[in-house]
């Protein structure tokens, strides 16, 4: 016998967010967010503070209920399911370890609630203390641990229950850089071993690109883009994502002509680009647009070298060079507009500040977006 609800069997550990909105009074913190999180993935919710990423996480956990929309876990509607019955674990930003329990008691807490046999509890707690690298510290009080050790206890406490989904709310934000890097690798490693679905919240784009399989860029309660770190970096779908991930040269301008090619008049000159570089807009002549160019796409042309086919070039003056090991950052003045280029140090030649040169970039490496809306601009502290 087939039940209509079971015909679409979903993998254990998958999350489906269907048109979820959340409002507090008049303020809508999430609007119509739809998202499919495949089982076993390491997905990061990335965005500036106040973008709704933590709200989305708390909705998945069931601490709050959506105003509209539905969340399914393993294909099952979670609307009526209280937090403690959901197949999830969670690591909190402040870790939320129980101060009146020891390390082992913290980790055993969930197992005791499940009334597992004593021997099984002892065995599993021991195994997970090992897994997170806390061997020998089981009897310690929480107050006696360092920040990194607390982090590991929080992780073990959730993972020992073998949830199919682990939610992590900026768990590394309180740590110093060194420890943070170390734990990022540890997290990724543990996730690969266990094949648990990790949903990780952060505002740090570098952390997000390092750690995750998929990134969801959020802003103002909307999903801006979903994709692998490479996709998000190489092909941002709007100006917000382009600015938020990595470094970018931003050239505000106006479309002089829009057909099979776009003629864009910017402070750095007028550029002719193929129409395919426009993202998230229908280009029309007269539009205000922003042209974006990654610094590593710009080449400095040596002496009288001519730009290759498909390249766009411009006159520039070198303002400054900064060697950072194998890479060099070159600050340029292009017709009065400041731009940054990143070059391999060994291919830089004799470029020196003050020198006049030609720069070139592949026409299809540039991107053209509509300007930010006022509310999105605020996320960067700008006024539109």
């Amino acid at each position, binding site marked *: 016998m087939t039940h209509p609800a079971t015909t679409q069997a979903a993998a254990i550990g998958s999350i489906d967010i269907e048109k979820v909105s959340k409002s507090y009074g008049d303020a809508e913190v999430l609007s119509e967010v739809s998202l499919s999180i495949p089982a076993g993935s390491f997905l990061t919710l990335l965005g500036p503070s106040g973008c709704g990423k933590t709200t989305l996480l708390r909705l998945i*956990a069931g*601490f709050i209920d959506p105003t509209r929309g539905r969340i399914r876990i393993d294909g099952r509607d979670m609307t009526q399911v*209280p*937090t*403690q019955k959901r197949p*999830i*674990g*969670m690591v*909190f*930003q*402040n870790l*939320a*370890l*129980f*101060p*009146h*329990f*020891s390390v082992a008691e913290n980790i055993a*807490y*969930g197992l005791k*609630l*499940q009334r597992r046999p004593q021997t099984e509890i002892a065995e599993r707690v021991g195994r997970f203390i090992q897994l997170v690298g806390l061997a020998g510290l089981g009897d310690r*009080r929480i*107050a006696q641990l360092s920040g990194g050790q607390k982090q590991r206890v929080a992780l073990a*406490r*959730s993972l020992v*229950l073998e949830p199919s989904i682990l939610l992590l709310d900026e768990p590394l934000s309180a740590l110093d850089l060194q420890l943070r890097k170390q734990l990022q690798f540890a997290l990724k490693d543990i996730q690969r071993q266990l094949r648990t679905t990790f949903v990780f919240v952060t505002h740090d784009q570098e952390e997000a690109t390092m750690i995750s399989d998929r990134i969801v860029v959020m802003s103002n309660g909307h999903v801006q883009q979903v994709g692998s770190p490479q996709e998000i970096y190489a092909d941002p779908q709007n100006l917000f994502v382009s600015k938020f991930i990595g470094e970018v040269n931003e050239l505000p301008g106006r479309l002089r002509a829009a057909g099979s090619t776009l003629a864009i008049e910017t402070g750095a000159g007028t550029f002719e680009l193929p129409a395919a570089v426009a993202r998230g807009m229908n280009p029309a002549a007269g539009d205000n647009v922003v042209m974006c160019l990654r610094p590593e796409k710009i080449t400095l042309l040596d002496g009288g070298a001519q730009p290759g086919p498909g390249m766009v070039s411009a006159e520039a003056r070198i303002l400054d060079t900064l060697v950072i090991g194998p890479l060099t950052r070159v600050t340029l003045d292009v017709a009065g507009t400041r731009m940054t280029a990143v070059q391999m140090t060994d291919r830089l030649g004799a470029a020196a500040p003050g020198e006049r040169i030609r720069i070139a970039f592949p026409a299809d490496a540039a991107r053209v977006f509509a300007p930010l809306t006022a509310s999105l601009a605020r996320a960067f502290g700008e006024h539109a």
Partner: protein
Amino acid sequence: MNTGEKPTAAKALMLLPALIVLGLFFTSVILLFSNAFVDRGGFSLKYFEQILSRPDYHVVFYRTVLTSIVVALLAVALAYPIALVLWRAEKNRNMLLIVVLVPWLVSLVVRTYGWIILLGPKGFLNAFLGWTGIIDTPLKLMFNDTGIVIGLTHVLIPFAVISILASLLSIEENLEEASRVLGASRLQTFRTIVLPLSLPGVFTSLMVIYLACVGAIVTPLLLGGITQKFVGSQIYQEVMATFNMSKAAAWSICLLTLSFVSLVVLKLIERRALRGQE
């Protein structure tokens, strides 16, 4: 704490008022205590013998201790839910706290007279219950231990609310959510996380209320009967009615010893209960 600053004459001067207060306090206490050991100009333990050998005085001690224990437990039991409500009510917490503290704006004597109006044989409560036909003869709600318990509990509940609330507020954010995510129901979370972590506040309340009860005077005097004496009211009577300062002093020393012993016992219980908590 060493702030690295040199002590100056100005600072020494600022300590002076405190020294005067402390000096007067200890002088008076020492004078009072020395009274207890003096009879007709010579050293004597006569008053202690009198107090400790009379069975009716033993009853006063028993009543004081028992009633105080009952009041402390009752006040904490009633205050805990109030503190929980205040803890949850993030927005209106300050306003609700004022409501809890309003009784303290009225003097103790006035409040106690208020209870007489409510609890007396012809008081509001008995009149109402008689009118509804629930009772035929008035309930004896005052001039006995019941009256003392009601009066003292009412006066002391705000102490318990405040110290339990302080304990609850010091519980780290998200602990309840963490417990829920690990599979605990709301009730289990309360039992294993919230309650144990609020115990310091519970013990502080028990201690403060117990000590306040043991030394209570006005409430037992007004709401207790002539025979329902407390150690406090007994001392009051020795001073105001029989003018026997030496005996009053001996009573005080007994009361102080009693409080101290109770405090030690309570501290031992607290240490057992809070084992493992920092």
